[in-house]
């Protein structure tokens, strides 16, 4: 039984070459997302977390209710800096809404599907006016979210998705295809044709990450670069460094590095530096440590983002729903890219290295202390 019996792509096992496309890849979604990259958002320009791309509005009159409201949030986890920054932003947004929210209940599933299902069920018994969910795993949380919808209260899902349209809305930025595409496009254009690319992924099975890789795959296949490896780093910088080091050993040079998440980008850069090799074109994310290295070392780099300001939107959406106002559904937020040209405007020496530039939090109560 060496071969898995059914056919999930096994992209992890692909080794050199990009192998067959991930089962997460949906052509139509891919096309739609890439189209959104050029779409013009509606809404206040200085508040991207309130903007929407090509919105379809949904009626919410049935949920209208007198305030103040009790909002409940089932959170997948707080186990990485991205989520930490996001959650702080969300808490600040709650604070900013002041008297409109009587109570904000947060339950952390600690990265466990099973616990999150129980958590959601538990929250249903606690008189919430609206339920916000950031699901741990797409497929496995679907039944629980469906159960929540059936309970009759408005459900707002954000960040990672679920396989159902029952929630009032699903909020996230353009998404994984956009992220993956931007990075891969950049890397393959800046490196020598046919050169060797190393793809680093943090973990499998999460849709927003899987779609990043599947879009990158399309780009790389099109550009005919040689993807010498697709490795999982578990988000561990030490492991990342060792992997890059090993690939440098094995292949002599690596001409481009693509990453599905920025958390370990700095470690990858350092692996080249420490080996005394030039850092090839690379993509990271809007984490400040990467932006700093980029600037300091003069990297050829790009940072597609999955902005943490999206953590503000669910609160805003929930309140609008409880007011009976229409909301975009799905609610697609803009997803800016940091490039050499606008890099300086995102650098902020005063914020901690693991902070995310796209937090959209500077106007929130407690800034900057809350995020330090």
């Amino acid at each position, binding site marked *: 039984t060496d071969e898995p019996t059914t056919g999930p792509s096994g992209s992890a096992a692909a080794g050199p070459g990009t192998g067959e496309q991930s089962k997460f890849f949906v052509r139509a979604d891919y096309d739609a997302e890439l189209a959104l990259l050029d779409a013009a958002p509606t809404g206040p320009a200085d508040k991207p977390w309130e903007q929407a791309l090509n919105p379809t509005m949904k009626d919410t009159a049935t949920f209208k209710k007198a305030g103040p409201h009790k909002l409940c949030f089932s959170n997948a986890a707080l186990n990485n800096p991205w989520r930490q920054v996001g959650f702080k932003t969300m808490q600040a947004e709650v604070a900013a809404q002041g008297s409109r929210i009587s109570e904000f209940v947060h*339950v952390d599933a600690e990265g466990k599907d099973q616990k999150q299902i129980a*958590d959601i069920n*538990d929250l249903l018994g606690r008189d919430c006016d609206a339920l916000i969910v950031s699901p741990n*795993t797409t*497929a496995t949380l679907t039944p629980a979210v469906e159960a929540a919808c059936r309970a009759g209260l408005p459900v707002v899902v954000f960040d990672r998705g679920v396989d159902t349209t029952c929630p009032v809305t699903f909020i996230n930025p353009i998404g994984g295809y956009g992220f993956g595409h931007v990075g891969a496009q950049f890397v393959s254009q800046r490196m020598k044709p046919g050169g060797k690319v190393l793809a680093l992924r943090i973990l499998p099975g999460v849709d927003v990450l*899987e779609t990043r890789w599947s879009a990158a795959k399309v780009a790389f296949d099109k550009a005919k670069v040689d993807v010498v490896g697709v490795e999982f780093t578990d988000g561990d910088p030490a492991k990342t460094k060792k992997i890059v080091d090993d690939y440098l050993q094995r292949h002599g040079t690596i001409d481009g590095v693509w990453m599905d998440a920025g958390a370990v980008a700095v470690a990858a850069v350092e692996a080249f530096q420490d080996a005394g090799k030039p850092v090839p074109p690379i993509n990271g994310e809007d984490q400040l440590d990467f932006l700093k290295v980029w600037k300091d070392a003069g990297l050829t780099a790009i940072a597609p983002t999955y902005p943490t300001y999206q953590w503000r939107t669910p609160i805003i959406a929930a309140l609008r729903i409880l007011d009976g106002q229409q909301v975009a559904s799905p609610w697609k937020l803009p997803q800016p890219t940091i490039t050499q040209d606008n890099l300086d405007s995102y650098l902020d020496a005063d914020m901690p290295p693991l902070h995310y530039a796209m937090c959209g939090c500077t106007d929130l109560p407690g800034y900057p202390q809350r995020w330090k």
Partner: protein
Amino acid sequence: MSALSLAAVPRRVPGVFLALALTLAVGWLVVAVNGGQLFNQATTVSLLHVAAGLGLVAVGQTLVVLGGSLDLSVAYVISLSTLVAAETMNGSDGAVLPAVGLTLAVCAGVGLLNGVLVTRLRVNAFIATLGVGLLLKGYLDSGYDGPAGSTAPALVQTLGYQRIGPVPLSFLLLVAVAGVAWFALARTRFGHHLVAVGGDPEVARLSGVRTTRVLLTAHVLCSLCAGLAGIYLASRLGSGAPRVGTEGLYDLESIAAVVIGGTALAGGRGGVLGTVAGVLLLASIDATFNQLEVDAFFKQVVRGVVIIAAVAVYARRNLRKAAWRP
């Protein structure tokens, strides 16, 4: 010989039951003061669901620990069995029985491998089951990049979500499995022999117990319990989940529940009832902290302290009992 007083000693209420009662009482109070309610239906249901998953694994773990062994591969066995179950069912109610059968068969195989390594090849249980866990991890990591298969709706509706009052079916399953295990330990030869092997393998051997076979059986049963937990989780999640076991920390948590429940890690003493109480204790700490929205990290610290403190209390009692052993 000075006559020892052998008048009926009152059977001690195992500490874990006291701790459980205390936790529930304090939890209820604190939550109430906070304006909440610990025992409302939804919370109780959630608590029992969490307990069901961990409990099934922990009951199995109790068996191997009682026998003086250990199983660190359960987390992977759970993940594997969710996948085998969900993929075999593939959403069809008709396939439930074959799927459950196949899942349990696969689990039994893993348990057999563990057992053979520990008993016949004399590999230390820690390393043996860690190694088997790695084998499974490799298979899961390379075979799956996310949830796969789909659990039969009938199973999702019953085992996954159905309940009688506040008691989920899955918790009844746990009660049944724990009951069977308790019964087996108290009333079957296998049970008596297992405890003997854990107490002193040489004494057991010289008394005519087939130590190898007994411990091997315990390993198979432990994996089967993990398999049941997997089937339950598959019904809960609606699909197979390649990382659900490790995410849930079922390996370490099940061992923690076992030792909190008063089973000696060295084997030979303890039982499943304590384990179930240990599981409920952990689950009620969870529930209380959930209600109070206590930070998950703080909860982790408390868990650590509870585990150490519980075992320290047992160790003290044993010290006082002070059976002098050569």
